């Protein structure tokens, strides 16, 4: 999965509330009915990048299974970014569908 798409998905699953890394991967898997897999390897560099861009903030907390984990929370900048990416995605996907219909 390209990093751009992964960013969008992460932003999207974080919209409902803060999650830790493993939960993010799980959520992406469940929501896509196991079609999309956020590979763990690319997830962490992506999260680092999003931290750097200021789209998410990270806080240490305790997971449901009592482990020390890092929770990622969407920032206002992240919200804005998600909206931008969704708009863009909508446009592109509409365009692609238009092409597929007429072709």
């Amino acid at each position, binding site marked *: 999965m390209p990093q751009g798409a992964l960013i969008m998905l992460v932003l999207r699953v974080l919209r409902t509330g803060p999650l*830790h890394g493993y939960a993010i991967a799980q959520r992406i898997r469940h929501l896509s009915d196991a079609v999309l897999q956020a*590979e*763990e*390897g690319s997830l*962490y560099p992506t999260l680092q990048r999003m931290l*750097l*861009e200021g789209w998410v903030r990270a806080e240490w907390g305790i*997971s449901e299974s009592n*482990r020390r*984990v890092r929770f990622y929370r969407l920032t206002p900048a992240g919200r804005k970014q998600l909206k931008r990416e969704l708009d863009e995605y909508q446009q592109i996907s509409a365009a692609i569908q238009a092409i597929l219909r007429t072709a």
Partner: protein
Amino acid sequence: MGKLFRRIHHLVNRKRLERELEEEMAAHREMMPAERRNSFGNALHFHDESRDLWGWLWIDHLRQDLIYAARGFTRDRRFTFSALIAITLAVGAATAVFSVVDRSLFRPLPYAHGDRLVSVGLIMPLFGPGEYMFLGAYREWRTTQSALDLTAWNGVGACDLSGEAPARLNCARVEAGFLPTLGVRPLLGRNFTVEEDQPGAEPVAVVSYSLWRTHFGGDAAAIGRKIDLDGVSTRIVGVLPADFETPDLTPADLLIPQKFPLTNARNYPLSAVGRLRAGQTPGSAAAALAAPLERFRQDFATRVGADFAKSMWLHVEPLRDRQNRQYRLALWVLLGAVSAFVLIACANVANLLLARSAGRRHEFAIRASLGAARHRLIAQLLTESCLLGLIGGAAGCTLAWGLLRAFVAIAPDATLRMRDAAIDGRVLTFALLLSLGTALIFGLAPSVDRLRSESLTGARAAGYRRSWIRQSLIAGQLAVSLVLLAGAGLLLMSLWRLQNAPLGLNRERVVTATFTLPAYRYAKDATQINFFNALESRLNDVPGAIATAITDSLPPAPGPRTAPYWRLANPTGSVTSPDMSGSVGWRYVSVGYFEALGIAIRRGRAFTDADRAHGLRNVVINESLARRLVGDGDPIGKRLGGNTVIGVAADVRNAGLDRPAQVEYYQVRKADREGIAGSDDFAWPRRGTAIVRSNLSQHEAEESLRVAIRQIDPAVPIKLESMQARLDTFLVRPRFQTTLLLMFALMGLALAGIGLYGLISFLVAERTREIGVRIALGATPREIAGLVVTDGIRWTVVGAVLGIAGSVLLLRVLQGLLYDVKSLDPRVFAAAIAILFAVAFLAAWVPAHRAAKTDPAIALRHD
């Protein structure tokens, strides 16, 4: 901005962040179902990726490379030491020389748009050397053309600050428009106004920054204060910026209004400086001045003489060129010499790196096969080169600082502006660029070539080709060394000739005291005459004196006053023919002058007290003037203008040490004002030099001179100097440039020799096996040594041939610096070549000797 801030935050806290990332990923892995755990992938790689994201991966790499480089350098101590020495010497020498030449050749003048300033003057061969300008022409030219804005000043002269803290100062007389035209704003206060520049206006002055600091404590309240200048109360109106300098670079403590006379002053002399208006060049300005020049020429022809008018021409020259004219060549030669030296040193570094790279082939091949990317290997080399360059550069700056002190010690005189030279930011930038440039170009170029051909298998394949590069480098070094050596030899020979040039006088045991009577105490003629008469009688009482004299000037400087030749040779006629051209300098001397300086009288007699009688006008002429007047005939009794020739004195150098004597004559100093003609220099009647030739030690002679003058007037500042010391000041610059060139030549030769030694040792090591076979087959040690030495001599021959060709091409430029030596002097060349070969032989002989002692049994087991 926030992103940059976060990046820096990441850099500062990287240790903690990495730990956290690790912990987080470990937790993730634990939460994964056991069967999928392996799919997590290479944690180390994700680490790197994340760190790269933070943008600081390169810092890690740099640190690794630096540690690796430092480890390598400490392992190859001999390499590191040699390379650092070469870089240090190159950067040190080049930086020191740059700091000396920069101010004169490259640094912008301390005026706004200084490149638009020009000096404007008339060349008048019939008057003698130098440039002239007159108030009449200047006034008209200023208003009748639109190519440039002209301003005028009248040079720097001595002036006296009287009052509580009396001091001898230097005053520049300038026009009100002088500072604005130069584009200089006073640091404090203001420039003087046009009204204050009128005759009769209240005296005002602008003080230099250093005078303001030393005499007024840098206090802003100095503005408006009154000082006593040459006995006149003068108000300070402004302070000059610290970097101010006069157009001819003479130091000035004060600027005072020129106050040009308003009428009857067309021939009043001055110096003109112009600022080119937009789009103008010196050439176009000269063209714009052509019409006004013609008008002036016609006017001058009717007033002074047609020949004078006809032969004059206008000279417009950028101000910087005018300032540097005397020593530009010397500075460029120094710069050229130090560049040549830097080349030699760089070739040495390149050679060392090539030799080192031969030993590191294996190491790099292993690193490459372990997965090091090509760019990482190049980065490693870059890091090593930069590290070498920076360490060498830092050491070089220290060396430059020391060298600069040595330069100032050798040549403290102001002509090279050595006192101004300093290691400042500009010079340090130069040093930094130079050291990095050297290290990169010479360190990386051969290395890149190596990376291309490297592999684990071809361990020996590139060996021969590389030593071919190294041989060319050595030949080049030897060639450049020869050029430097020959150049230094020429300067050395010239200096020797100059030092031993017959001056026409005897400098032994002669001590002089030069003084200018303060204007505020000696404004009247009578007081001046009284001082000189008193001095003359006191000099006669100096114990141990063999001869004493008073003069207005000392050779080898010219006499301060001149007369047109035609007025002396043909006073009744007008200037009609070219053989009447030129001017004759003259000196105003007391009776004992010739005896005191040991100047021989060739014909007739020297002055006696009888010649001082009122109404007599007897003169002594020099041999050159005698030749010009009467050829081989007898000039005694001839008329010279209104004078009578009574003797012919031997020629004495009077236009500097390095120029043949010019025509001149001597007038005897009288007890009154009779017979004193004017001079361009307003202070000349108050200026004089007392000369004593004695059996005393120099110190005693100086003391007795000091006492003699102090007893007449303790307020007269004097400068004591032995004749030898005075002559030495004329040798300062030749000595300086010779010393430097010799230093660069010898250091260059040493480096080239060391390079040659290194290369031959390297080749001998490569050929150990071959040499072993030869010895085993019966070659004598002598033959082996010959084999090795021949190799070295072969490159030396190539280097010498290239060097001779280069010398023939390049050393021509030295001609302007040489005295009585041709730039292609065969003796100098022979000596330089001999030295080169001697050094080359020595460098080859040591490894050859070692090779000859090779034990074949060991050599054959050599890999």
